[in-house]
C-alpha cells in the first residue's frame, strides 16, 4: 500500500514541478549551477570507469576466443555491442544513480531538515519547480555524457586489445564497423533520455519527502539509490522489449 501511495505522490510531485514556474532569471542560475554539479562534475568518474571497463570487456572477449577459426575482429565487435547497447546507457546510469542521485537526495533532504524548503514555501515559491525542474533540465544534457562514455569505452577497448597484443589495430577497427546497425545508437539514446528523467526525479522525490534529521538524510540517499537503480533496470527491460524485439 505504501508503495502505491508513494507512486501516486511521485506523479503528483511531477505535476507540481510543471506548475507555477520560477522567475527565469533565478531559474537560469539554478540550471547552470546544476549543469555544473550534475553533468560537468560527473565527467571525470564516467570517463575513468568507461575507459577501463571498455578495456576489460575487450580483454575478456579476447581471452574467451579460444577457437583459432574465429576472426580476431570479433573482439572489436563484442566491445562495441556491449558498450553501446548496455554498458554506456544502463550501467553508467546505475553508477550515476549512486553519484548524482545521492547528491540530489542529500542536498534536497538537507534543505528539508534545515527548514530551507519551508522558508521557500512561506515566500510563496513553488518549491517543486524551484528545486526539481532545474535538475530535469540539467540532466537533459545527460545523453552527451553517455556519448562520451561510448567513445571512451570503445577507445579503452582498442588500447587494451591492440597494446595487449590480442589483435591488430586494423582487426579491431574492422570489428567496430562489422554489421553496424545505426538504430542501436538511437535505441541507446532513447533509453538514456528516459534514464536522465528518472535520475533527476526519483532522488528528488526521496529528498523532498524525507522526514527526520541528519541520520535520515543518509538513509534517504541509500533508499533513493536503490529505487533509482530498480526503476532504471525495469525501464531498461521494458524499452528493450519494446524497441529491439
Amino acid at each position: 500500500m505504501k508503495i502505491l501511495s508513494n507512486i501516486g505522490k511521485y506523479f503528483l510531485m511531477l505535476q507540481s514541478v510543471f506548475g507555477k514556474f520560477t522567475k527565469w532569471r533565478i531559474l537560469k542560475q539554478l540550471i547552470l549551477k546544476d549543469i555544473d554539479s550534475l553533468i560537468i562534475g560527473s565527467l571525470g568518474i564516467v570517463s575513468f570507469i568507461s575507459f577501463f571497463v571498455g578495456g576489460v570487456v575487450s580483454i575478456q572477449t579476447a581471452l574467451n576466443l579460444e577457437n583459432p577459426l574465429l576472426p580476431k575482429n570479433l573482439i572489436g565487435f563484442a566491445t562495441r555491442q556491449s558498450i553501446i547497447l548496455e554498458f554506456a546507457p544502463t550501467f553508467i546510469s546505475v553508477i550515476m544513480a549512486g553519484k548524482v542521485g545521492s547528491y540530489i537526495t542529500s542536498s534536497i533532504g538537507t534543505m528539508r531538515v534545515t527548514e530551507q524548503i519551508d522558508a521557500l514555501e512561506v515566500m510563496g515559491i513553488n518549491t517543486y519547480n524551484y528545486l526539481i525542474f532545474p535538475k530535469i533540465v540539467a540532466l537533459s544534457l545527460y545523453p552527451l555524457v553517455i556519448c562520451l562514455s561510448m567513445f571512451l569505452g570503445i577507445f579503452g577497448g582498442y588500447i587494451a586489445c591492440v597494446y595487449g597484443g590480442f589483435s591488430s589495430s586494423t582487426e579491431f577497427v574492422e570489428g567496430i564497423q562489422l554489421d553496424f546497425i545505426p538504430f542501436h545508437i538511437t535505441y541507446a539514446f532513447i533509453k538514456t533520455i528516459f534514464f536522465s528523467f528518472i535520475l533527476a526525479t526519483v532522488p528528488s522525490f526521496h529528498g523532498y519527502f524525507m522526514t527526520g534529521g541528519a541520520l535520515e538524510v543518509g538513509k534517504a540517499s541509500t533508499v533513493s539509490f536503490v529505487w533509482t537503480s530498480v526503476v532504471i533496470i525495469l525501464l531498461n527491460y521494458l524499452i528493450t522489449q519494446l524497441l529491439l524485439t
Partner: protein
Amino acid sequence: MIQVDHIIKSFDGTQVLQGISTVFEKGKTNLIIGQSGSGKTVFLKCLLGLFQTDSGKILFENKAISEMTVNERSVLRQEIGMVFQGSALFDSMTVEENIMFPMQMFTDKENDEIRDRANEVIKRVNLINANEKFPDEISGGMKKRVAIARSIVMNPKYLFCDEPNSGLDPKTAILIDNLIQEITSEYNITTVINSHDMNSVMEIGEKIVFLLNGKKAWEGTKEDIFTTENEAVSNFVYSSDLFKKVREMYLKT
C-alpha cells in the same frame, strides 16, 4: 491583524490543536508560549499555511485563508516574513544573496536597486562586514540577524518568528528580542513569536497566548502575567526561583 477562530489540527487521530481562538494585533509583539509539545510550532505552521487546519478559520485582515483565491494567497505570502528556529538560510548563497533573494524572486527591480535595499536592511539589523560570507561562516546571532533582514526586506505586513533566540547567549538573545520589537513598531507590522524563553516574555510580550496540551490556557500581557492566578501559566512562567523572586518583588512594589 490576524484572527484565529477555533482551529483544530490532528495528526494520526491525535488532536494537537484543540479549538484555539485568539487575535494577534497590528504593531504589537504577540507571543505564543508553552511547554515543549504544547502545540506552539504546529500552531505557528497553521498560521503560516504550512499545515492545513482540520476546522476553524484563520483571518488575515478579516479575510479567511481558506476563502482566498490562489492569487490572493500568493500575494499574502509575499506579505509574510518568517524567522525560523534554525534561521533556514540558503547554504549556497552569501549573506547578501540570501537577503536579496525574495526581491529577486518577486520584483522586477534591477539588481543594483535590490542590492541597495538589501544593504539598507543589513544596516538596520546591525550586520557588519558579513555581506560576502556564507551562512556556515557566521555566528548563530548573526544568522538570526540575516534571517530577520531577509524577512523584512520586502516590507512585510506580518512577521512570524519561531523561537528566534533559541541557542543564543542571554545578551545576544535580548538584542534579537529588542530588534524584533523595534522592527515591529517601526514597520507597524503584526508580529507573532513562538517562544519558551522567559526573558522574551518579560521583555517584549505585549500580548501573550499560553498554550497547554493544544489548548489556549491563558492570554494577557507581560504585566498581567505578574498578577495572574492561573495556576498552569504561573507554574510555567515561575518555574525558576529567580522568576518567583522577581514576581514577589513586583507585587510588593
